[in-house]
């Protein structure tokens, strides 16, 4: 279980003064329901993961992981979590996968025999048993991601946090990682960040959309997709498209653009529309509508406000 109440984090940022990275964040993650944090670069997702894993102290607010306070009981929190970070390296490349995992297992006070046993087990779980004795310098990025997952569960933690677990890996490797995370989330508390809606749709039972350090929407993927109502796909002449609609563009072709856009806001475009058809709304439609192109876009499409966070679906 992960729970935060009003978590806020400020960073001193030279001449820009104080920057608010997280502002009044309230989330709850239960075992058996993996939760996704999605949002643009710089939204605060990684900062929140770091606060929850005790790597960064919050400026204010409370956060509990497995019942322990991240500020007052960091040792207990650390014992309760497995973390997968987004770094490119993460392992000693001159050692084999088995040696790397044995090394990390000993950090959790496991004896050598137990460390080897757990390393073998976790390599088997992530499907790398056949590569146990290969130096990790020869591993692909996808294999390293799976190995990072194996390391995260070496000490059998009840809570797992993953920062962009499928970043930079190919389609098949992504599927493998998604399957693994989904399996881990069947019994454990799993919180992950991602830029890929495919990850979210396949893994998450609940989603927080975060932007500029604030949660702008939350709900199950199904509830969130209902949030946008009907979505239409429009074809419009590119040179007639107002700038405020550019974030809804999915393709550019021969002077035409195709947009996916909530039907409730297409009125201004009706006059320029060449073709229009209804489509099933997706999480990506929700994301684009709420978040826009980046953290710096301060005019997201607003549905309604209310609750502890800005918007709650369902």
């Amino acid at each position, binding site marked *: 279980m992960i729970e935060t109440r009003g978590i806020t984090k400020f960073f001193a940022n030279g001449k820009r003064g104080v920057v608010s990275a997280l502002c009044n964040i309230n989330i709850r993650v239960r075992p058996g329901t993996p939760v996704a944090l999605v949002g643009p670069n710089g939204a605060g997702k990684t900062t929140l993961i770091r606060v929850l894993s005790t790597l960064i102290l919050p400026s204010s607010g409370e956060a509990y992981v497995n019942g322990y306070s991240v500020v007052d009981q960091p040792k207990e929190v650390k014992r309760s979590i497995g*973390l997968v970070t987004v770094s490119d390296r993460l392992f000693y490349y001159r050692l084999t996968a088995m040696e790397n995992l044995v090394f990390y297992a000993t*950090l959790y006070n496991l004896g050598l025999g137990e460390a080897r046993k757990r390393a073998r087990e976790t390599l088997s779980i992530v499907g790398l048993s056949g590569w146990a004795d290969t130096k990790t310098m020869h591993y692909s990025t996808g294999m390293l991601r799976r190995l990072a997952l194996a390391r995260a569960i070496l000490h059998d933690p009840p809570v797992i946090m993953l920062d962009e677990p499928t970043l930079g890996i190919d389609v098949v490797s992504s599927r493998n990682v998604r399957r693994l995370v989904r399996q881990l989330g069947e019994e454990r508390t799993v919180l992950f960040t991602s830029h890929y809606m495919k990850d979210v749709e396949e893994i998450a039972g609940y989603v927080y959309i975060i932007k500029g350090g604030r949660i702008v929407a939350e709900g199950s993927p199904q509830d969130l997709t209902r949030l946008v109502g009907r979505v239409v796909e429009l074809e419009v002449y590119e040179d007639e498209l107002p700038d405020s609609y550019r974030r809804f563009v999915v393709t550019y072709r021969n002077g035409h653009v195709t947009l996916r856009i909530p039907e409730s806001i297409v009125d201004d475009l009706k006059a320029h529309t060449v073709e229009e058809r209804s489509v099933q709304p997706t999480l990506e439609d929700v994301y684009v509508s709420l978040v826009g192109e980046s953290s710096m876009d301060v005019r997201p499409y607003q549905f309604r406000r209310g609750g502890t966070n800005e918007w709650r679906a369902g």
Partner: protein
Amino acid sequence: MSGVLAKLYAFLYLRGFRVWVSYRTQMVLNVLSWVLPVFTYYFVGTSLGKRITTSVHIMSYTSFFVVGLAFQGYVSSSIVTISQRLRNEQLYGTLEYYVLSPVGVFGFLTYSAVWGFTLNTLNAAVILAVGAGLGVSYSGANMLGAAILVLMLVASTFGIGMMSAALVMVTKQGNPISFFFSTFTTLMSGTVFPVNALPYVVRLVSYALPLTWALDGLRLALLQGATIIQLSPYITIMGVFDLVTIPLGAAVYKLCFDYVRRKGTISQY
């Protein structure tokens, strides 16, 4: 206990030895860097040595600098090794995993230091052996006294290494403690010439360095067979250094670690 042994295996064999020998060129250069200075100073000594060392009542300059070179590595390279190890973990992206594990960064530095000291013991053994080949005699050496002094030197070095690594957490690059000890120990600590050859003001600085006292004591123990009683002034002074540097190292470490947690820069490099 099995956990400690497993960690020693992990840090000494896996993270230390296995990684070290995997960079073969670096390993060969390391060994050469231990041995070559011995020959450099040996030839310097053939023309200048006797005049330098008679002032400290050691008749052989080779004996003087062999002991100096053998043990100065505990200070200069250990301090650099500990802080460099922390920096490497930042670059690898693995430092966070130490922070999150029960062993923590403090434990990581401690176990990493064990590897550093093991390597330096190998370094010392090689230099002392080369010295024996050049005619240095250790017959009648007080090995127990020497071991006590080495352990006390290691303890004070660990305290200084902690401060050095803690600063790396904050500064990422540019470490004044590491720079000072790696650059000045050979010059100021009586490694290859006696400190009384230094100008008075510089000599005062050299007396503030634990290595200066440790080397004086080690020369007495290894070359003249001084008893524990005769070594007691050096052991006492080293004890004072240990009492100061270890708590100070731990305090500076905690200060720096809390600072980077507040700033959120643990993994930045």
